[in-house]
Structures are given as C-alpha cells and as structure tokens.
C-alpha cells in the first residue's frame, strides 16, 4: 500500500475487552444480550422523521458545497453488484475510482471499490497501489440465506483475494424471530474470519420494519464487533433513508460515548444525487458530530452518485451546468 492512508487500514480493531461492564455483559450474547437490546430507549417514528426532514433543509452553498462534494466523493464505496459483472466492468470502475475526473485536478479518489467476492482479485489488480480499498460483499449477499459454513467460505474467498473490507449481511430471519444470539454469534464468526479486513455489517433496514428494530440491530452489530453498521444491500426497497441513517449515527455516537471507540456508518442504496449526499453529510455533522465527516467513519454505498457529484463539482468549478456526456457513464 502507498503512503496515503487507506481508509480501511487506518483504524484500530475494537475489542470487547475494553467495554464498560454493562456492554461487556451484553456482549456475552444470549439472554443478557436480549435484555440489553430490549432495554434500549425506543424510537418515535414521527419525531425521528421530522428531525431528519428538518435537518435536510439545511442549506449548503458555494465554498461549503464544493467542500461537501469533495468530502462526499472521498466517501463513496463505488459499487457494482450485478449478476452481469465481469472483470472488464470492475477494471473500468477501478480506473474511475482512482481518478474520477481527469479533466479537473483535485477530485479526490473514492474510498473503496465494492464488488462480489469472486471479483475481488480483479478489483485489487485494477486499483494497484492507489490506496483505495477493496470491499467485498459476503455471507450469501443479499439475502443471507445459506449455512454459516457457506458464508464463512465466502468471507475467506474475499479476504484471501485481497479484500480490505467485508460487507456482510445479517440473518434477518433470525433477528426478526428474536434469535439475537444467533445473529450475534454469526457476526462474531465472520469478524474472526475477516482477520485484518474491516467488517461492515449490513442490517437491511428495509426488512426490519421498525426503527426500534434498526436501533437494536445496530447495537447488536456494534457489540459483536462491527467496524461499520450499514443500512442496506441496495437490493431491497426501501434502502437507505435519512431517518434510518440517523438511527445508525445515534448508535455510533452513543457507542463512542460509552466505550471511547469510533465506529462508522454506511448508508447504501438509493442515494443518487449530490443533494441527497449533502443531506446525509448534514446528518452526520449534526447527529454524530464533525469528526465522523471522514471516509474512516462514513461511507456512501452507491454507484450513480459519483457521477452526479462529479457533475456538481464541475458546475461549481466551471460556473455552468454540466451534463452526463462529460463524465464517464458506467454501463
């Protein structure tokens, strides 16, 4: 890896040993975990959504907007997760990830390239020594419907192929039927299989039904050792929303308060425009705090978003509106 710090390598691995007693207790899993999760304060849907909508009206303009756009570009996990993905497509994305806008100096590279496990090697090759991370989905993405053995085998494939980050999905069936310990143990196993790679835990919030569940799942994942909590696979609607991201941001903020450890948040799916992205950054800024405004702690799981960010960046720099023919379209 080059000198530039890789977002995915710059952090210390959190360990349960440093948890305060109540969290350490919960992190034993089983009944204590269940008690802890059910003791978390509830989330009022309307209040949450109102706050999210209200913060979304913050106005970010001019210089602040350019800074926000660059910040957002640096947080993108440029993602392709299609059945039709090929080595060629991954190489094309890798090139774009390294230098998103060759005509305009200073566009930062994205944070990571996110692919299926069997394409990790291609991504690693394509990114070379750029310092850009390679993220791989795993654990029977997107449904999570397989055996633990199969899931762990996938993680191993990704990590052995050079993935810096693993985006796992939780077993929603187990979660929704109250088998929290099972979900917890599975995350623990995956965490162990990741080795040095960082673990993002996808909650698939669109399937959890309530914000209370989203909060519980967030804490469950954090307790099990997730480096990031991530909203969605992008394969289920609704994917990321502002309110759901608020809940995740609250969880990592509270986690830091209780443990001193920093964990990240990744909304994924449905974030397509610069306007959307900036709204997320405002939420990061006001809910978690300014220090989360870093690719170390916040990522966007997106594909089309990057082009819109680049067009907006050009608009800011060139003083006129840009168009899709002026950025590399991913086909």
């Amino acid at each position, binding site marked *: 890896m080059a000198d530039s710090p890789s977002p995915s390598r710059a952090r210390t691995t959190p360990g349960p040993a440093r948890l305060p007693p109540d969290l350490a207790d919960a992190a034993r899993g089983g009944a204590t975990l269940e008690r802890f999760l059910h003791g978390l304060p509830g*989330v*009022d849907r309307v*209040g949450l959504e*109102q706050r999210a909508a209200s913060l979304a009206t913050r106005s970010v303009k001019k210089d*602040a907007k350019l800074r926000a756009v660059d910040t957002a570009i640096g947080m993108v996990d440029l993602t392709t997760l299609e059945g039709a993905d090929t080595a060629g497509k991954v190489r094309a994305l890798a090139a774009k990830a390294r230098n998103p806008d060759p005509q305009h100096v200073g566009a930062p590279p994205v944070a990571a390239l996110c692919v299926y496990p069997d394409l990790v090697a291609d991504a690693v090759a394509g990114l070379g020594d750029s310092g850009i991370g390679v993220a791989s989905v795993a654990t029977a993405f997107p449904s999570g419907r397989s055996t633990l053995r199969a899931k762990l085998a996938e993680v191993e494939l990704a990590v052995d192929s050079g993935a810096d980050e693993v985006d796992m999905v939780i077993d929603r069936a187990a979660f929704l039927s109250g088998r929290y310990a099972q979900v917890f143990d599975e995350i623990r196993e995956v965490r162990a299989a990741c080795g040095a790679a960082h673990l993002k835990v996808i909650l698939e919030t669109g399937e959890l039904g309530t914000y209370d569940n989203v909060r519980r799942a967030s804490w469950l994942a954090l307790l099990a050792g997730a480096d990031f909590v991530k909203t969605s696979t992008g394969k289920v609607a609704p994917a990321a929303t502002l309110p759901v991201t*608020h809940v995740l941001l609250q969880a990592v903020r509270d986690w830091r*308060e209780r443990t001193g450890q920093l964990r990240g948040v990744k909304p994924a799916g449905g974030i397509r425009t610069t306007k959307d992205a900036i709204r997320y950054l405002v939420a990061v800024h006001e809910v978690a705090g*300014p*220090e989360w405004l870093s690719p170390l702690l916040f990522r966007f799981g997106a594909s089309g978003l990057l082009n819109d960010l680049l067009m907006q960046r050009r608009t800011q720099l060139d003083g006129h509106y840009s168009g899709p023919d002026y950025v590399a379209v991913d086909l």
Partner: protein
Amino acid sequence: MTEPSSDPWGYVPALESAELARLRDEYLLFVGGSFSDGSGERTTGVNPATTERLAGVPTTTESDVDRAVAAAEEAFRDRWSRLAGTERAKYLFRLGRLLQERTRELAVLETLDSGKPVKQAGDFDLPNAAAYFLYYAGWADKLDYAGFGPAPEPLGVSGQVLAWNFPLLTLACQVAPALACGNTVVIKPAETTPLSALVFAELCEQAGLPAGVVNVITGGAEIGDRLLTHPDVAKPVFTGSTEVGKRIQHRLAGTGKRPTLALGGNGTNIVFSDAAQEQAVQGVVDGAFFNQGNVCGAGSRLLVEESIAAEFVERVRDRVRTLRVGDPLDRNTDVGALNSAAELDRITRLVEAGEAEGAEKWTSPCALPGRGYFVAPTVFSGVQQSMRLAGEEIFGPVLSVLTFRTPQEAVGKADNTPYGLTAGVWTEKGSRALWTARQLRTGVVWANAFNGFDPTAPFGGNRESGSARTGGQAGLEAYLDV
C-alpha cells in the same frame, strides 16, 4: 460528548435576500378600503437583528381608531353581514391563496420585522396563516352545522390587538374566523411588528374584499386600549401577555363585552425515563427554543424523571449546542433575534435572577452577532419549584430543568403555575402518556410531540393563559352571538 471543534466544512450563510420582502420606504394605514396616513407623527420600524431602519410607519391617534371602527361598522352593517356565507367563503379562500402565493415575500418581511428565523417564517408561520384562511373559508357557509344552533349571528366589529411573536399567524388565527362568521375587523398589530399586517391589507385589496371589512391601524398600548374599549367594538380580541390581558379585562368590566384573551403560558415538558430519548431531546429543545422561546405555549420548563436526569440534561445541552444562532435571514439559522431592546433587557434580567436564586446556568457556546438583540440559548438546571424561573412566563430562549420521581409529582409540579396553556409528555408507555395528558390542567397536551399546530385543532389555555380557543369549530364561538 462531541464538541463542535474541528468543523471540516461547516455551513456558509445561506442568506435570503432582503429584497424579496419588497419593502416599501413608507407604509400606510388601511382604513375603509384605502391607504392613508395616520394622524400621529411618522416613525420608523427597525430590524431587531441589525437595529437598522426598515421603513417608515405611521402612528395614530384616537381619531384614527374612531374612523377605522366607523369604517368597520359601516362595512358590517351595509355589506359584510348581508353577504351570503358562500360569498364570504370565497373571499377568505382568496386571502388564503394570496398568502400562499406571496409566502416567500411575506416570510422575509416577517423575518426582517420580527427577528425570527426565515426558515421558520417560511415553513411554519406563513403556511399556517394561509391554512387558517383556507380552513375557515370552509366554515363561512356551514355555520348552521357548527353546533351553536341554527343561524348563529355575527357580533359586529371586532377590534383585534395582536402579538409580536407571530405577527401574521396570530392575525390569521383571529381574522379568519372573525370574517368567516360575518364580523368585520380593525386590526392593530404589535407596535414593533406592524409590517406584515400592513401588507396583509394589500392582500385584502387584491382579493377585492369589500371596503372596511378589514382595517389595519398601527400604534402602541394606548391605541390598543382605545380600540379594545371602543364603544362600537362588539368583540375585543387580545393576543399577548397575561399582564396586559388582565388590564383589558379590568377595563372592559361592566360593559357587557366579553374579551377574547389569548395570553401567556409556562409550558412544561415531562420526560419519563422510558421516553424515546432522541425524540424527547428534540421535543424539549424545540419546545424551549422555537421562535427564540417567544411562544405563548413554549415548553420553558423541563420536568425530567430523576433517574435519567443527569444524562438527559447533558443530551439536551448537546443538542442546544448545535442550534445556530444568528442572522435570521440565513436559512441555516435556528434561533434568531429577540424582538426589541426591551425584550433583551427583560430576558437578561430574568437570567440574572435565575443565577441569583441559585439555579445552575449553562449557556450555549454559540457565537452571537455583534449587533442586534441576540441572546444565547440558556439552560438552567437545579431549578426549584419556588424559584421565579419555575413560576413565571419566560418567553425567551431559556429552559429551566426540574426533576420528579413519580408521575403524580410530575403532574403536580407541571400544574403548579397560574398558567394552563401547553404541556408535553414523553413516554413510550401509552397508558401513562394518556393518563398524564388527562391529568394535566392545560388546554393543549402534546404526547410524544411538541408544537403541533393546525387550524383544525383548537388551541388555547385555562386559568391565567386566557380562555380563548383558536382553531376548529371552537374557534368560531368567539365571533358568534351564541
């Protein structure tokens, strides 16, 4: 807890242009359908955020009150009360639409004149003002079904002295039902915030409202008193402080007129340990600091269950820290300017009194503009029931924190005030929320919410908060002979 230290990008000001307000250099009274100067000396309106001149405003004498009331009386007798309800409805509808069309302009104007954040003026004051007219437009031809018996009659001329905290919204809350019921009005906006009412007069002209149905005059307390006690004013309406409300009630004693008084409050948010914490924090902060706390129903007291008090108050402070205080024209401003030097002085003295009484003061470290009437959001903890902070109407960006141990104690403390306007209760237990709502002696209870406001929902208080209700069919009662 997170300090707002190294802000990687922050917000640059997102200023609304003051030009959107289309300020005139000079404003005139609106009496009998035409604009005219007052018979007092002209004065100037000031932007409380900058202390700069906004526009020239007329002042008035008793003769202006007399001619406005006469115009309203004539319009009532000859035109408005003879008009079918359906036709009145369409005029109200026009006013509602005009308010919607000119929302941005009026929001900026209201901000310049009052100091409130433009985001709030545009997102709360104006939409609600328009909604009031549209809602009551619908009542104008359905009064027979409002529950007051068949063919309820209007009263005549309503003299309306309005408040400076929501200049145009308080106008809408009173003028819309007054007109819907067939009354005519003479409006006197607050001395420090006359502009939106004077522009509302232009809307009346654009709406083609018959001359004299709406009249707008300016002036201070004396003119207000004169208007409310005018022999030809059948319905005196006052929105403002309890102190002044009592004075008006006193002066009207024995006249056979029943004033409608919408007065002050000392609202409380009760937070139980099982509350949805994030939303409760938000509700408490909104309740205390919305419109700089210049809200009759503001939740200026927080009653938090002792077992979570320390953590909860810390979270409230953290949230208050994120409130952006400053230029009201900046769309990112959460807390604007106080309305006048006198208000700044009053709040400053109240804060000093709180400290002297031994409450623990915490002030948001936010930066304040160098000029204008600004005060940083302040939280007092360790407030006791016996302190002034707990008993008085605060009407400023100051939150007092008290604790409780049992639901009974919470209700007892919340009600232990001469006011009875609003309260909030926060708990995830439905039966407790509803029990608390039932017990509280206030006119409005927001359970797991705060500041909900809608023309369909009656709003108003008990005891020294005045007994008026605006909104809903209850809002018609003040304007009908029932």
